[in-house]
Structures are given as C-alpha cells and as structure tokens.
C-alpha cells in the first residue's frame, strides 16, 4: 500500500479565466495531519474543494490510493472516502442534529427514535456536548461546528478536510477538537486542515504546505517551521512584527464619552452589563463564547432588543437611545461590522460597488427611493481603492472574493456611513495575514481620527495589539477593565474565566 493516500499534480482551476490555483502539486500521506496555510485568496479553499468534489479541476490530475479520480460531486468524493467540514457550515438548519448527522444515509424505513439514540451514542463517544434532538438553527456556531465534525467522522472517511475548523471554538472546545484530530490520526485517518491561526498549524500538523496567490510555495515538516518562516512564505515579506506586534508602550488618551451602557439586560445572554466607550480610543472587548459581548453591541446597534421591562439604559453622547431597527442606529452614527459576514454582512450576489452603496443608502433620510448607478459606482470605486479591495473588477460579485476582501467590503459598507461609533465584531475572523495587517491599520487610523472604536475579539493577541483599553466580559457582563499598558494574556484570561 502506497504511503500517499491522496495527491494532486499540476492542479489548476480557472474562474472566468483567472486561476484560483495554478499548477499546484500536493501530496497527503496516510495517517498524517497536513496543514494548509496561506493568505485569503491563496487558493486553499479551492484546493480542498477540488479534493472534496465541490469543484472540478480545469487541468491537472488527482489520485486517491494510486488511482486517478475526478470526483464531480461531494457524494462521489465521499464514496472515495473523502469528507469535508466546510467553513460555512453546510447543515440543514430546520432539521435536528441527529437528522443532519444521518442525512444521505437514511434507510428505507427510519425510526426517528432510533436515529436519536444512535446519534446520542455517537456524539457521546466523541465527547461532544450536543443534544441530538436540538434543531440546528438553534445551536451556536461552536456546536454547529461540532455537528459538522461529527458528521465527517460518522461517514468513516479516510481523508477528512477541515476548513477553518477552530474559528468559532472556545479554548476548551479547541482542546477537544485537537484531541479528536489526534484520535482520528491514530485510527489511520488522514487530515487536511486550513487554519489562519498559525500556532494551531505548528502545534497540530505533521507537515505544512504554504500556498500563495494560487501557487505552491513550500511543503515541509512542521518541526522545521516557525511562525516567522510560515508568515514569510505566506506573504513574501516579514510581517511578524507588524501582525499582533509587540506590547503597546503608549495608549491613546480617552476623549469624550460617546457610548454609555448602564445595567443592560437581555435574558439570558446579557446580565446587568455596564460599560463606556470613549472617542479617539480603541476599546477592546474580550470574552469567551457566551460572554454576551456580541449581544450587548447588537442591542446598542439596534439589531437586537433589550428586555422589555427594566432592560437598562443606553446613552449615545449622554442622550438615552433605544433603537427598534438598525437603520435608526446607523442614522445616529453607530456602525456595527458583523462577525458573521456571510449571513449578515453583504448581499453575496450583488457587486462590490452595489454592496458598499447600500451602506450609504441605509443612512439616507427617508424619501430617497432610487439608486444612482453612477453614484454607486463612484462610491464603490473610492472605497475599493481606499481599503485596497483586491478584485478583478468593480462589478464582480462579493461571493467571488476571498474572505479578507469580503471583510473589507463589509467594513467599507459601514465606513461609508461616516459613523461616530464603529463596532468591529471579530474583524479578522477567517481573514488572511496580509488583510489582517491592513484591517488593523484601518482600525488604528479610525481611532486616530477621533472615532470611538470598539473591537470585539476572541483572539487575545489581536485584542492586545489593537486596544487602548480592554474590557473583559464574562457571563453577560463586563467584569474587568485593563489598560493596554498593564494587560497580560494571563490577566485577561483569568478575568474571563474566573
């Protein structure tokens, strides 16, 4: 039996004549954990989608167990023993966890109770705390991810591909995930995983492949890589000092208080939460999943509503506000850049320019009932240039962009509104290293211009690199505040957990 379970040679995939991957050679060994890293747009997702039968190669060859194959559908790939856990989860939201697990494997006659029992036993064997009878739409991101992973394991795949598997997991869940991956390896399963968290690649992988601009750059044993070498290979320049750089030795002085949240309540997520945000400063908000950070700021920006009775108080520039819809908050000068850009951030089939222009329309006074194509194109062009959105044309659909560029479109859509308070929720989740630096520069620039900036992040290095003051949230309320000068990862994590 060959040591190589899956290989691609000279793999090329063109989208509208533009190569997403270009002559890539890739080999996956039996029972190895292989990390794929690279900037967004480097071709990682395309490469794995080829393996999983989601897209077909334009040219080149794919072999599984020494046999040339060309899976045209995920079902064909699964029959070859290749399963993929997608970054955007592919579960059916209206079905239960158990139904999703066994979707496509149903027998002629199905007893729901039997499926639930089997699912319960299986989930328990993986040590996943997910209720099989729960409807998927009611699950949080982390639990959805668990179901995705469980489904791949259930299908007894020889090769499992994970696309950004840990992006939505808490540290404890990540540990479970790592243990699970190592367990799969012991069973002889080969793993390919894409991750932007380079530490995870270094920690977990046996080998690492770096892609850049659709081309293969290097493959080597993980032990021969360090963070700097990976980053250099990814971007062709040394970013290790600019990305999540050294400790801050100076913080911005707080300006006037722009936002005051007093005893805000939204059961069960936000519990008597109080905080302030000041102009000319970046206020970082750290917390584990379920800390109520996103919910608090979604209430501030009119996306969610506080408790009807005694729900607390929100003051913008010392005036009490209560927004029933986000448009009212936008008009008042609050911009919320969502953490879930694919669902809430943009219209994926609309062009970049149109998406950005829609952000401006959200702020227009009522009565404006038409779209100006010229205005839309001009606004789109200006922001594409300003935020360095990399696309083959202005009229390209947002769905065709890489994650980092999609995020820039979402940010542009908010910034075109010229907000006074900008809330970034996980601004660099699923974003490549190069785009992270650019987005961080932009956030810093906004604070320097005197805007009140909030950055919600679950990633400590990001919080520490960006924030002037750090609020730590736990169980629905802010429990601790640190100046960036005094904060350490240990102090922040201690406050977030204890």
């Amino acid at each position, binding site marked *: 039996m060959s040591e190589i379970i899956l290989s691609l040679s000279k793999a090329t995939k063109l989208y509208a004549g533009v190569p997403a991957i270009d002559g890539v050679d890739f080999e996956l060994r039996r029972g190895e954990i292989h990390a794929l890293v690279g900037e967004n747009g480097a071709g990682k997702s395309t490469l794995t989608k080829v393996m999983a039968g989601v897209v077909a190669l334009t040219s080149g060859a794919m072999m599984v167990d020494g046999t040339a194959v060309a899976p045209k559908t995920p079902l064909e790939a699964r029959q070859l023993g290749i399963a993929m856990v997608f970054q955007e989860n592919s579960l059916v939201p209206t079905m239960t966890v158990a139904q999703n697990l066994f979707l496509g494997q149903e027998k002629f006659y199905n007893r729901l109770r039997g499926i639930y029992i089997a699912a319960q036993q299986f989930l328990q064997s993986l040590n996943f705390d997910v209720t099989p009878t729960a409807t998927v739409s009611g699950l949080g991101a982390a639990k959805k991810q668990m179901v995705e992973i469980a489904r791949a394991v259930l299908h007894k795949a020889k090769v499992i591909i994970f696309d950004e598997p840990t992006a939505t997991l808490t540290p404890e869940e990540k540990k479970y995930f790592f243990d699970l991956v190592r367990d799969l390896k012991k069973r002889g399963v080969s793993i390919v995983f894409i991750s932007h968290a380079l530490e995870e690649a270094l920690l977990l992988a046996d080998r690492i492949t770096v892609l850049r601009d659709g081309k293969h750059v290097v493959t080597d044993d993980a032990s021969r890589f360090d963070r700097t070498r990976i980053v250099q290979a990814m971007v062709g320049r040394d970013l290790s000092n600019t990305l999540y750089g050294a400790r801050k030795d100076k913080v911005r002085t707080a300006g006037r208080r722009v936002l005051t*949240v*007093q*005893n805000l309540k939204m059961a069960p997520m936000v519990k008597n939460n*109080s*905080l302030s945000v000041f102009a000319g400063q970046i206020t970082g908000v750290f917390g584990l999943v379920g800390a109520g950070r996103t919910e608090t700021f979604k209430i501030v920006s009119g996306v969610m509503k506080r408790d009807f*009775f*005694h729900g607390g108080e929100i003051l913008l520039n010392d005036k*009490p506000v209560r927004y029933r819809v986000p448009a009212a908050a936008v008009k008042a000068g609050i911009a919320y850049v969502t953490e879930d850009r694919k669902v809430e951030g943009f219209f994926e089939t609309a062009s970049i320019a149109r998406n950005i222009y829609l952000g401006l329309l959200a702020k227009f006074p009522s009565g404006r009932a038409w779209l100006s194509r010229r205005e839309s194109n001009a606004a789109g062009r200006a922001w594409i240039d300003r935020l360095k959105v990399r696309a083959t044309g202005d009229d390209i659909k947002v769905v065709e962009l890489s994650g980092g560029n999609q995020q820039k479109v979402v940010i542009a859509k908010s910034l075109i509104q010229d907000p006074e308070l900008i809330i970034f929720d996980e601004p660099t989740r699923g974003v490549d290293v190069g785009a992270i630096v650019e987005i961080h520069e932009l956030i810093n620039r906004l604070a320097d211009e005197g805007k009140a900036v909030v950055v919600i992040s679950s990633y400590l290095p990001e919080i520490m690199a960006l924030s002037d003051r750090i609020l730590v949230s736990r169980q629905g309320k802010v429990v601790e505040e640190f100046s960036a000068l005094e904060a350490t990862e240990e102090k922040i994590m201690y406050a977030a957990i204890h």
Partner: protein
Amino acid sequence: MIAAISEFANRFLGRGDATITVPSFDGALKPNQLLEKAETLFACDAPEDLAVDDQSLLIADGARLLRLTGSSPTVVRSFERPISALAVLPAGRVAVALGGTEVHVYDNITAKAPASVFSGDMHAVNALASAPDGTLIATDGSTLRGVSDWARDLMELGDSGRVFQLDPKTGTVKQLANGLHYALGTAASGSDVLVSESWRHRLVAIAPSGARKVVLGRLPVYPSRLAAASDGGFWLTAFTARTQLVEFVLREPAFRRRMIAEIDPDYWVVPRLSSGHSFKEPLQGAHIKTMGIMKPWAPPRSYGLVIRLAADGAPRYSLHSRADGVNHGIVAAVEFGGDLIMIAKGPGRILKLPLAHLDEGIGA
C-alpha cells in the same frame, strides 16, 4: 395628560426617568485600591475640611481648627460649634463656616475676632472657596436640612441647594444659584464657579450671568468638595458611590416615607461614609461575599473616591477605596508639600499619597 401617561408607562416598564441604572466605574474611573495604600497621617474624631496656607495644612476637626506643620497636629483654636467648611483666602485670611449657618472671616488664623461675619439666610454651608476677585464662594446644601442631616435631604429628594458669593470687603452676600440638588463643594474656574451637585451626580459650571453648564455628568458617585490642582485642573472628592438599591429606594416615595418615619436613621437604605459596624446595616455585598471575604466589586454601602480632573473638567484618573476597603467617605482633598492630603471621614483619618507617584503611575 400625555406626560402623565408617559410617566406611568415608564414606571411600569422601567424606562425613562424610572430607569434604575448606575453608570459604571470605567475609563478614568477604573477602580483601584490606591486609597487603601495611602499613609494615614493621623486620626481625628470628626474631620470635615482641609485648607492650605503658605506653610501649613489646616484641618477642621469638629469644633477645633488644627494645624499640621511637622508630623503631629496642633490645635490652633476652637469654636463653639463644629466647623462645616474651611478656606484660606489671599493675605493669610481664613474663612470658616460654623454649624452650616454662619461664615466667619479672620484676618489671620490667630486673630481673636472675626473681621467679617456672614449669617442670616444660610442653612447648611458645607464648602468655601476663594474666588480670583477676592470674594468667597460658599455652597449651601439645603435650606431644609442641616449639614449633618444630608441623608434625610437625599431621601426627600432635596433640591434647595444654593451658591453664594460673599464679599468680605463690603459684607454683602449675593446668591449665584439656587434650586440645586444638594450643592456640596465649589472651586473657581476662570470667571465661572464649579459646583458639585451631589444628588444629581454632576459637576456644573455657573457663569457670572447665572447660566449653568454641566461640566461632568452621570457620575457613579455622589461628588463632594473640590480643590484646585497645582498644574491645572481639580481634585474632586466623592463621599460615596451610587448603588442600584439606593437608586431604587429613591424612586419609591412610599417606602422612603415609612423608612424615615419608622426606622432608626443609622439603618436607613442610604449611602454612608463608613459601613460594616452592625449586622443590622443593609448589607449589599452579601451575595458576593465568598469564603468570608467581600469581593472588591461588591455593591458598596460606603466608598472612597478622588477624581483628578483636567482643567476642562474631563476626568484623568482616580483613586479608589472599594467595598472591601476602609478609607471611605472622602470629603476633602488638597495638595500640600508634594503630597495629596485627603480626609477619609468614614474611619476619621487624614491620608497622604505622594503626587509624583500618582502622576507617574496612573496619570501619565
């Protein structure tokens, strides 16, 4: 009619004026325990106010006026009634408010008879400050309750505070403002007068024309006396912190009426200058008292706070004594000899913190 319906709806829903919320201690007001680290210079029976002349620190302690030149205080003079406010004027003159109803101005600290006496309409004079034009600014907390009866004034939602301008040369008294929700502390700021409006948790600037402007609002504390800082700006003291429990009681008139009528004032649900003396006190830190230790972030019955303000009134940093601390009830602070001297009225202490340490440590 609409206003009445709106008020009823707000009370029912807990919105608008009926919102029972308290601002958080964050930003420049981020909690620390610096007041607990302060050196205790000495203890007093009833410290009330501080002032600084050219060489020494003056302390009002009950009816006694103390002077601190070295390490121990000496009694300079005694009065028949407790001193409720103290200020040093140019040319070594000293002003003292006695019992809240009279202000005496002495040409020097040892002068036998006062050069001027202001009395009459004053009721609860609790702070004095020297104005640039040689006059004296006085805050009168309430026209209904005496200086020591401030808790009752709070429970009655008192709004009869006034600010006076006293002219020792002519002996005239001019009312600069009235209708304040307990005026407690004042300082001159250019041509304006800064006043702590304690029950409204804010600092207001009163122009010579009488126009008022909120300089610092929505404080999580009850502000008290002010003092000028040597490099511009001010020191604002706060004698205790706001809590949701007290805010709730302040919105329940029937409860307050019964409490005032039936309960010993020592055990009222009101802010205090010190706490922990009796099990009958409304203990607010109970549910976060674990293993016998009160968490520092427990809702406090008493609290200690001094806020360093910039010249424009914006807070720069703050010194705290939290729920688990002792140095509560800070009612006065002045700079003296490179230190910040403060009165912690709760435990009856005169505290000292080196200024250089403060500016380097948290103010930079």
